């Protein structure tokens, strides 16, 4: 069993008069499959990034490496979020719906990794 340590930090010196300086970390057990840090060029057609049949409870890291094009990350057919240029996401995933990725336009590159709990 391996240990994964994710840390989130948020900083702003000028959002308000009170400086934003926030950090949270965690220690996660990885006992299953690992999808090592990888990159894929998306298109305007859905790409199944992680198939629900292949993974159980996991932690997912995604980053849109493009400097201008956004992409949609869909969970099955009903839920989604939009990953704008340069943005990242880190979240736990049940593995109950496929995770799909599709570019708003062009061929932006998505960076991704997965660790099964």
């Amino acid at each position: 069993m391996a240990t994964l340590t994710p840390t989130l930090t948020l900083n702003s010196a000028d959002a308000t008069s009170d400086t934003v300086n926030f950090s949270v970390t965690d220690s996660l057990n990885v006992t299953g499959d690992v999808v090592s840090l990888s990159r894929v060029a998306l298109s305007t057609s859905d790409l199944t990034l992680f198939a629900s049949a292949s993974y159980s409870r996991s932690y997912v890291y995604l980053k849109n490496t493009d400097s201008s094009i956004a992409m949609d990350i869909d969970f099955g057919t009903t839920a989604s979020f939009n990953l704008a240029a340069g943005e990242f996401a880190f979240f736990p995933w049940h593995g109950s719906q496929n995770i799909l990725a599709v570019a708003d336009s062009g061929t932006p590159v998505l960076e991704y990794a997965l660790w099964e709990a």
Partner: protein
Amino acid sequence: MATTTATVSISSGDLQPGNNLSINASSTLMKTGLTTGMELMEMGNAEVAKDYEAQLFSDGPATDNGAYWIYICNNSTDDTYYIEYKVHETTIGALYAGDWMFVPYNASDADAEIEVKALNGTNKIEYAMFKTAWTLPAAEA
């Protein structure tokens, strides 16, 4: 306009022999498009009782086209406690004691409300939403 930077680092010393994992990604919170800015932070904490399903972030009007991010952390200390989170009735994942998540959020999507449900115990959660487009509501007459 204010500049706010979000950074995630993910590390592991024992995932692969001889190959330490060290991911670092940083992003400036942008308005829709590539304009720097964050105008509002909403944050708080709550207790969610077992089997209680709470709406943490409601969906906004279709005109609500700003960029948003949400942070949710399960601050419970009992490692058998966990909450599921849903986007519009679709369960995406579970946050166990100490786990956190940070994702963008489609506030303008009428089917994008964020819900949490405690599956074991009374979970202590903290949460925040970061908004980049915010207009103060008009005063009541």
